[in-house]
């Protein structure tokens, strides 16, 4: 009976391990984040815009930016909430193969130095009715022992009361 034939399948795992060279700019940025827990930016000497993370060439005016520490400066880690999305769909974390706990909020922040940055909002700020444009936010950085030199060394941004 065709309809009763046993159908077979297989549990499989796709796994790819990889390494990438961060280069002198992003590598320094990640190194500063790991060592100091501070975000660094570079100002373009051509058009004056702030590049964060720092890039070798400004994407707007194509001017080469200087190497650390010339033109580099630390950011306060503070800013304001510009936009956010609440993610309710369980998505797989490609690093672990596990589903990310949901819901969580992904925010866009205008940092006080004048550069946009995107990251998560913290678990204490899941209540969407509290969120509004312009709320003051602050980066929450992992403890030095937990930092590995990735953007996830920033745990999340939290909303500063008031």
């Amino acid at each position: 009976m065709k309809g009763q034939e046993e159908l077979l399948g297989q549990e499989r795992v796709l796994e790819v391990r990889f390494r990438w060279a961060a280069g002198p700019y992003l590598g320094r940025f990640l190194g500063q984040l790991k060592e100091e827990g501070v975000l660094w930016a570079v100002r373009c000497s051509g058009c004056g815009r702030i590049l964060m993370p720092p890039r070798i060439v400004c994407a707007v005016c194509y001017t080469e930016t200087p190497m650390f520490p010339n033109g580099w400066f630390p950011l306060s880690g503070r800013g304001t909430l510009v936009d956010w999305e609440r993610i309710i769909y369980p998505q797989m974390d490609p690093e672990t193969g596990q589903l990310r706990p949901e819901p969580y909020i992904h925010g866009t922040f205008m940092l006080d130095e004048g550069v946009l940055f995107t990251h998560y909002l913290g678990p204490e700020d899941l209540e969407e009715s509290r969120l509004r444009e312009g709320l003051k936010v602050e980066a929450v950085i992992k403890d030095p022992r937990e930092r590995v030199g990735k953007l996830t060394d920033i745990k999340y941004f939290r909303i500063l009361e008031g």
Partner: protein
Amino acid sequence: MVDPTIQIVNGRLYGPYHNWYGAVASRFFRELRDNGLILGNRCGSCGKVFLPPRSVCPGCLSDIDEWVELPSIGTLTAYTVVYYSYSDHCQPKQPPYALGIIRLDGADTGLCHLLEEVKFEEIRIGMKVEAVFSRNRKGNILDIAYFKPSF
């Protein structure tokens, strides 16, 4: 102060998934698992014999429903030796190992599988090889453990 620049960032992609074989490949793997048989199928329109079997002929787009039992002996048509280890999950065994494309006698297509019981430097395109079946068969392609030279 020591330059804290991070030179290398380690990354990993990890995705578990379930893969259904479908009706045609399920029959292929059932016969392989239960009876140690290698089944191909023949296109009734153009006569090509496919291994692994396919539900539709890629050449003339006809539905295929004629099954053929193939011998476990064939000819090596291509091979490579893998030295690079890139995953604990996506490689059939720890490198180094040899992979070949084997055209079983009577088939028109090649099956990719491991080559063992042969030194890498003695592998030759055109050599006769035969399938060695696993003792504990589970319904996947490693129910054929590997191919070895056939004398």
